[in-house]
């Protein structure tokens, strides 16, 4: 495109519209174009050329899905902005078709409440918002788990939560600090990095399907990163898997009952699992039980390592947290995570609901819209310019709310800002915006920045003479939905263990007779002591010797003791 805008948003070279029209026409004529992504330099300072190109494209092909970088990711960095804009265009047409179709079908079945869609920023939004910016829905599933944990943590009064989701292939970690899920800006999908505010959920490859192997050079037992996934899956699944996995170790140890998996609907091949783990153990001179216990130890350590990274990077101590363990494989291994981290309290959110917490999280999230405005202020901020920028941000947010059918008057407003030392690029500290009418606005903001920076990186990292820049203003409009669970499980049950069996506990490296409970019989305030296995239709909770479990009034299992 023949045009150039400079860093101040000034037009250096006007857009050559005729040439642009020809170029777009040629593209539309010679390629099969379903969506068009447009990203020009400095468009977040002056979007005029991008918007004009969109108009031209729509004139040439009405109804074309056009994705503009000034709308999708209006921040400095054309690479990251292009990635976001292209991803938005890439998922756009299919998402829009799917959302409309689903909406129509729900309406045909007389769904009474509005159809809302989860966003990776942790809020749900009307479908029209997701159609305008499908990028915000990308990867919002794992976000749901963290959102669910945040919602339950507020109900339970757990201020700081490590939310862990262990499934078949991955282990995801997010944090809730002071009741709020921790957000991040930079996101990498495959090799593509872009900026979008999202709940910060990070993954490593250590799930139930992670394959255990012996490193030929160190002779050490390794777990992952390769996964058997669900097909062929662990050896115990009997679907042709031959390499031993974490789930096979669970079966060998007796943490998971071969005929009790998925409520008995999927019998497991315990002999196969034992043979595969035994063969692995022979290579390093360990028995099948020792090998299985070792697999869990290595896996737990990798999981704990990720958790430590996440918490310590935030300047926090994992021991000050409650650990929430969910996903199909989480409750089986919670005893290991707590021991590894020195965490004294863990929660299996919603008991059997732990395997589907993401869905719960989505259902209980607030309706939320989030808007950013890039700016270029140095501290102390010139207040007139700040007021002008805020007024523009507010106007934009209100327009956006109305455009998706929400009444701005019914929405709560939260403003924050992104700060860093001038020159930093990958760094951003998000802080609540002090009241701009307060005379000490600048002092408060500088103090808050330095306090947070020193907390995260140490006082020695503060650079007293370097400019601090405020590079984006953010507003979040939200409305709570009254969808959270209520406390209705207050009756204690008279449940007792249905049987007992021998479990090889890695904590003791020995077989210990372990009572097995039917979790569906448990009610609020029921309490049991480890060792115990609580079997549920979708998962099992393993309680190590010395731990106790109590069901709270919301149906969560609270595990105490390491």
């Amino acid at each position, binding site marked *: 495109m*023949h*045009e*150039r805008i*400079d*860093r101040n948003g000034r037009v*250096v*070279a*006007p*857009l*050559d519209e005729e040439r642009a029209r020809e170029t777009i026409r040629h593209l539309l004529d010679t390629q099969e174009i379903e969506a068009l992504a447009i990203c020009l*330099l*400095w468009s977040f300072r002056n979007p005029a050329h991008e918007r004009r190109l969109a108009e031209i494209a729509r004139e040439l092909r009405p109804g074309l899905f056009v994705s503009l970088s000034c709308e999708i990711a209006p921040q*400095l*960095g*054309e*690479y*990251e902005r292009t990635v976001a804009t292209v991803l938005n265009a890439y998922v756009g047409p299919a998402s829009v078709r799917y959302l409309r179709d689903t909406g129509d079908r729900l309406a045909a079945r007389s769904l009474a409440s509005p159809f809302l869609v989860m966003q990776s920023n942790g809020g749900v939004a009307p479908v029209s918002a997701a159609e305008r910016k499908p990028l915000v829905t990308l990867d919002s599933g794992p976000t749901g788990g963290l959102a669910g944990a945040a919602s339950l943590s507020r109900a339970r009064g757990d201020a700081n939560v490590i939310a862990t989701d262990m499934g078949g292939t991955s282990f995801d970690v997010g944090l809730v600090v002071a009741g709020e899920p921790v957000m991040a800006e930079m996101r990498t999908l495959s090799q593509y990095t872009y900026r979008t505010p999202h709940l910060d959920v990070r993954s490593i490859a250590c799930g139930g399907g992670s394959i255990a192997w*012996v*490193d030929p*050079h*160190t*002779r*050490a*037992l*390794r*777990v992952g990163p390769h996964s058997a996934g669900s097909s062929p899956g662990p050896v115990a699944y009997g679907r042709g898997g031959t390499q031993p996995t974490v789930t096979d170790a669970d079966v060998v140890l007796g943490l998971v009952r071969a005929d009790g998996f998925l409520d008995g609907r999927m019998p497991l091949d315990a002999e196969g699992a034992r043979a595969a783990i035994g063969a692995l153990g022979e290579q*390093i001179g*360990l028995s099948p039980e020792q090998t299985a216990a*070792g697999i869990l*130890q*290595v896996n737990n*350590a*990798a999981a704990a*390592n990720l958790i430590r*990274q996440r918490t*310590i*990077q935030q300047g926090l101590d994992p021991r000050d947290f409650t650990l929430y363990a969910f996903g199909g494989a989480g409750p089986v291994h919670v005893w290991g995570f707590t021991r590894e981290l020195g965490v004294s309290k863990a929660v299996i959110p919603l008991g059997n609901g732990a395997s589907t917490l993401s869905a719960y999280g989505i259902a209980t999230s607030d309706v939320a819209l989030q808007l950013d405005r890039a700016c270029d202020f140095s501290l102390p901020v010139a207040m007139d310019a700040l007021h002008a920028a805020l007024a523009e941000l507010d106007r934009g947010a209100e327009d956006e709310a109305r455009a998706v059918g929400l009444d701005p008057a019914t929405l709560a407003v939260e403003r924050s800002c992104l700060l860093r*030392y*001038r*020159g*930093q*690029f*990958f*760094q951003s500290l998000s802080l609540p915006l002090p009241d701009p009418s307060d005379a000490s606005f600048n002092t408060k903001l500088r103090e808050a920045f330095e306090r947070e920076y020193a907390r995260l*990186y*140490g006082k*020695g*990292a*503060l*650079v007293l*003479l*370097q400019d601090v820049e405020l590079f984006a203003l953010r507003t979040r409009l939200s409305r709570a939905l009254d969808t959270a669970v209520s406390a209705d499980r207050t009756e204690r049950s008279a449940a007792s263990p249905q049987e007992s069996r021998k479990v090889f506990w890695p904590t003791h490296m020995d077989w210990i007779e372990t009572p097995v409970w039917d979790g569906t019989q448990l009610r609020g305030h029921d309490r049991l002591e480890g060792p115990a296995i609580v079997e549920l239709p979708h998962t099992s909770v393993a309680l190590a010797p010395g731990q106790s479990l109590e069901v709270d009034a919301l149906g969560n299992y609270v595990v105490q003791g390491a």
Partner: protein
Amino acid sequence: MSEADPKDMTPPVAWDGIARSYMPPAKLAIDPSLKLFDARSANVDPITFEVVRNALISANFEHGALLEKLCTSPVLLFGRDFQTSLLSADGELACMGPNLQYFGNSAARTAQWTLERRSANPGIRPGDMFFSNDAYVGSPHQNDCVLLAPVFVGDELFAWVSNIIHHMDVGGAVPKQNSGAREVWQEAPLFPSFRLVEDRVPREDLLAMFIRQSRLPLMVEADMRAAIAACEATRGKIEALVERYSASTVGAVLAGALDAGERMFRARLETIPDGCWSHRVYTEAAVPGDRNAYCYQINLTKRGGRLVVDNRGTDPQAGAISLTFGPFSGAVFAALTSQLAADLSGVNGGVYRCVEFDLEPGLLSSPNHPAPISYTGAAPVGACIYAAVIAVGKMISCSRDPEVRALALGPTIPHFYTNGLEFDRPGGGLELFSSLDGMFGSLGAMPHRDGVAAGGHSWIPESVAPNIENYEHQSPLLFLYRRHLDAGAEGAGRTRGGVGVEQAFVPYGVTHGRAPSHMNESFPKSQGQWGGNPGSRSFFRIHRKTGIEGRLAQGQVPERSDEIGGEVTPLAYKGPSEPLGPDDVIEWATPTTAGWGDPLSRDVAMVEADVARGHLLPEVAKRVFGVVFAPDGKTDPDATATLRRAMRAERMGREPSRDLAALDAQYDGLVVGDALVLRQGRWACRCGEDLGAAHDNYKHTAVMAEAPVQQLASEFVSDDPEMADLMVLRQFLCPGCGVRIDTELVRAGDPVLHDVRIEES
């Protein structure tokens, strides 16, 4: 170590980090007051081993992530011009991060020098950190600052946590680096290892002393504090690990991981017959205005599971193009680990143990003090990485194990191309700009696949080039375009090199500036591997009197070099500083890497695919690869076969007497590279033609076609033909089938290199 040259009348000097680069003695002389932890006795079970190993690697990895987050210099943010490492108590490298690979040996050498020279006075204590930017001690050049944090267990030194970061400017006669220095005194000061942090608190007086040297004190201070914070955080993680698992366990894991790496590397070396492999690379202009070419040579002698590296054949130290032992050995290690041990996840110390250096002193890659070394990062180290990568590639190509042969990475970019500009701020003061677009790089042709366009560099895998908006945000520039170079004869081969990147920009919002350092190459520097074409030249041009502002105002934005207009005066490779004004357009390119194998052996379907994707014009495909396209856009197999045979005949000067061997044909001898077979004590071409006795250089039996490199193809014609004609391209062709076995891109008159010597039949 070899003795000094007998002709050298000066008394022999030691490799002591003062008169010459530091090379540690077999046994370090450490003051007895400092006790070192000894972890050799502990036995660790395979599960704890893995848990601790993983924690150590992660701690080092996070060290890098934290640096990247806190630093402000674009060279660090985008270029990842830093490294983090973990060393054993006696300074042996345990693991390093996925950042700048040639920094790998610098921390270890600096730690060992610090142990020898600082353990008595001022002493090495818990909570200390030492700082050094002395390239004769270990650092690559003055800008690359080593920070070392000793980790203690009780009163015993247990390990070192280290980072090395590149600072934009650390003082000296000219900003950043001095390409014209004749002695080290004209560069930024060297600070041999001193204690910067005591009791975990930086010494503000010493910090200020260092920062005071810089033209960019704010940036240097921010980055110094970031480095200290990141190093301290990582030391805390290692201390916590020791606290939890015991020092003997963690120590045993460190030692065990090194042993495992060593075993793996030795096992791979064992698949290669004993022998010696060499490669040469040339640079030009030891200082601005100099019109000579200079050679760096690397020779690898392999016996069993050990390698000896020497630099004989390299030119004597000259001008500003020398490099010390830290970066030279780091370059060789980068070439070895990236090809033969990439699966070690950075636990590279075991590889280092298998390699010995036997350097002849006083050469470009082993200079005596006070040779200037600030320019190391631009040309010398890139040249040595390239030469080492190709030499290692030749060695790997002789492996009996196809999996090891496939590990060769192919040619790298032979220099790190950048340009440094400065502008007078309207209100006074100086704006410094250093282009990091060299980080776009490109990956060279590999044995089984093409290189990657703008694919970065194998020796700094995590680096990225900045956004144009980052540049324009920080510097008074306006970019016109940034695009892939066209594919042509440069980098052509059986597999082709990735193309590089070209761009144009104008000074913006300033009226006066200068281009003190730029690289406008007279000749290409990278020879192809096993017969591939050389890569392209990096160019730097200034178009003057362009009227660019007015043309932009009319909506005309140049998209290619030939649309810029104005007047172009040819520039020398280096300097002198050129004035810059707002009507000047600066154009430069980071080059296309070299190819692998004879371009006339390239699979026709691959050429067809390149043309179909718009990467190659049909007329270029014909001229370079001998592939003929019919009017319908499909290739013509008969015409292609005829043309290729005619092209082989033309370059050999006679008709081929044999047919080409099929690429997948099997042989009972050792296949070497694309074309050679070694069997029964004789070299042969795969077509069957005999190429002489195994102990002789097959190149003497092959047909040698030698001509100035400019004559290879129009793409190689230079802005400076006289300089370019210093260099010739020698093609070694099979006298039977005419296939190009290998090439030499050499200074005219230099002897033919005996670069593949295999000691067993």
